[in-house]
């Protein structure tokens, strides 16, 4: 946790982080490697984390994987208000 490295589940939601140490070898197979830059979409302190890979895929890290994965925060974003259109059965942007 030195050098500004924190467990990824302590990074704020909607922040962009650089992975410093992987908490699970499995992450390699999910395209997240050391030095990967990913977006922390939902972060639950001391809990699981939902991250987004650069290609857009969403990856869930359970509490253990998230707590053991160290990252450094590159930037944080204020979550803006979304303008969703509720269209049943469709994905919306």
């Amino acid at each position, binding site marked *: 946790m030195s050098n500004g490295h924190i467990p990824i589940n302590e990074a704020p939601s909607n922040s962009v982080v650089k992975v410093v140490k992987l908490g*699970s070898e499995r992450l390699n197979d999910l*395209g997240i490697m*050391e030095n990967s830059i990913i977006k922390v979409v939902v972060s639950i302190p001391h809990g*699981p984390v939902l991250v987004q890979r650069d290609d857009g895929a969403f*990856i869930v890290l359970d509490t253990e994987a998230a707590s053991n994965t160290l990252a450094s925060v590159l930037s944080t974003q204020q979550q803006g208000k979304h303008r969703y259109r509720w269209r049943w059965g469709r*994905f919306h942007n």
Partner: protein
Amino acid sequence: MFKNEFKLRLKMRTMSTQHHDTIKVVIAGIPNSGKSTLVSRISGVFVRTANYPGTTVSVDEVSYSVGKTRVLMVDLPGTYSLRTSMTDEAVASKELLLGDYDGIVVVGSALNPEQSLYLLVQVLELGKPTIFVLNMMDLARRRRVHYNVEAMSKTLGVTIIPAVAVGDEGLRELKTTVVKIRELKTGITNIVNYGKLEKHISTIMNTLGVSRGIAVEILSGNPLLRVLSIKVSHVIEEARREVPNIDYYVTAARWSTVKSLVGKFVTREGKLTLSKYDELFLNPKYGVLLSLLLLFTIAEVIFMVLEPLVNLMSNALDSIPIGNFVSSYVGNELLSSFLINGVWNGVRILIDFIPYVFGVSFLIAFLEDSGLITRIAFPIERWLRRTGIPSRGLVYLIAGSGCNIPAIMATRAMPSTRDRVLTVLMIPYIPCTARFAIIALIAAAVMPHLIGVVVVIPYVVAFISISIVSRISRVHVRFINENTPYTYELPPLVVPLHKAFTKKIWHYTHDFISRAGVLIIVFIMMTWLLSVSGPRGLVGPEALANPSVLTETWLGIVGKALAPLFNPIGIPWQISASLVYGYIFKEVVLGTLALFYGTEKGGLLYAIGSTLTPASSLALITFITLYSPCIATLIVERKIAGLRLTAINTILQFIIALILAYAVFYIASFIQVIT
């Protein structure tokens, strides 16, 4: 373990040599790519499910014929790569690396080209005829993900079939292509350039005579290939001097190739964002509440709808004059009792289970196929972790409140063996509807004005005991060497109401009948024998109608022997003896109680009400909630957790039930005194 595996492989080999027209194809795919849906749509109705040798991992086998050719498809558990520490995924990797088959069908998700191609490039290196199915093309089109299938097929040297498994698209083409899989080319095996490792890969291939894929896996230290790696240890050491972290190097090279392939053949319009529904479920603040609310609502609706059906079926079975029919044809009283109370009772109990099996199967299949299960598990994982319950396990525990049996059977879909076994050991602590029937009767008899409060007690004690047992069980399941952190890709959120979904429910129900049905009937026949015989030999069927004779049977003796355990908490021997019959089926307890008290249902309420104090009734409710599931549950529990763990768990369950019953009795007595 190895002996069994050897036998299976030998059987497969013999089969393939005996029937020259049988093609064996393995189906591999990333998790949530719709692989099982695809197999289910291709196969027709019947799917054969068996545990992979030496594991509790289920592998589905389906077969179909085209002309004179029979195709045998083995649906492997979903996996992201050929090297994994998770037991289920290791089954897929082992079969792909070491199995004996004619070709591979790789099912990828068109929504996730990177992950799908990552698995495909590894499979191609194995040098087997391969078909790549790009499933979920409809969702990909909707999300504006487009593929240049023709160019990608040419570059990779494989047949690529765009498909929509839930809507029949591409299925006919897949069926006809699979039949010709032996004639297909093997694809480009050296699509990934491993740079500095290439010469070592060639050396291993030449030394061992293995495929490029196996050579790469040996170099990167795949534990499944440890035996082979010993033979080329000097090559591996030499490679390590050049590339210290081979595993990382190989993964990085594969991902680099995948990204280049996606860049060439896939175009995306717009950026992928979380849907509004996802934001609701995954919200750290209110996601927990919403997830639990949704889970309970779906479960409640299903069981509410099912209740009239269960009653209707039960009444229909009651109206069958089986007793008169048997008595008119069978003169022997003992044989007649065997047919009515042994065989027919067994069949009846089995039929009684079916609506619950159907309901729980529907609930679990809906949560699994819609992608809700991962969303529900996400926000509550942190809380469940403290209690020791696996996050996905909660869904199966709640489903178990309908009936423990289908909930246990459905855990086969859980991706982690360790979590699956732990969940299976916890489910029997959840009070099912049958246990609730007895609990409600006791509550109505002793504390009718507090019935609403009393029925909450089973859930509270179940939660406490699950927290205790999860800690104890973790020690016992250490032998499952799988304590790895778990990561996965978030599956898309979809409405799963399609043909394959209904087939899945049917498959679960059929699986229950075929796997557990015969055993349930046999065990109930054995229990009948124990209830009509005792140390003096055969007591006769009158034991089932006469309380004084009943106490001379094996079951009666065990029941009476337990009485000293219950007398201190105010539970008379008639009730403790009746509880032994709960091992057969919980409803049998009510019948036995009526027999002991020599009364019908209305009178039974009065008899229990006048026998038990409020404190002893609460202790009894606690004990009934926990003491044991029925024989049918134990049978399915054993199938997944094994005999040793099931035996330990059943003994533990009885001990916890007794301790908590005493605790509840003394707390309730204390409260009664001070108020």
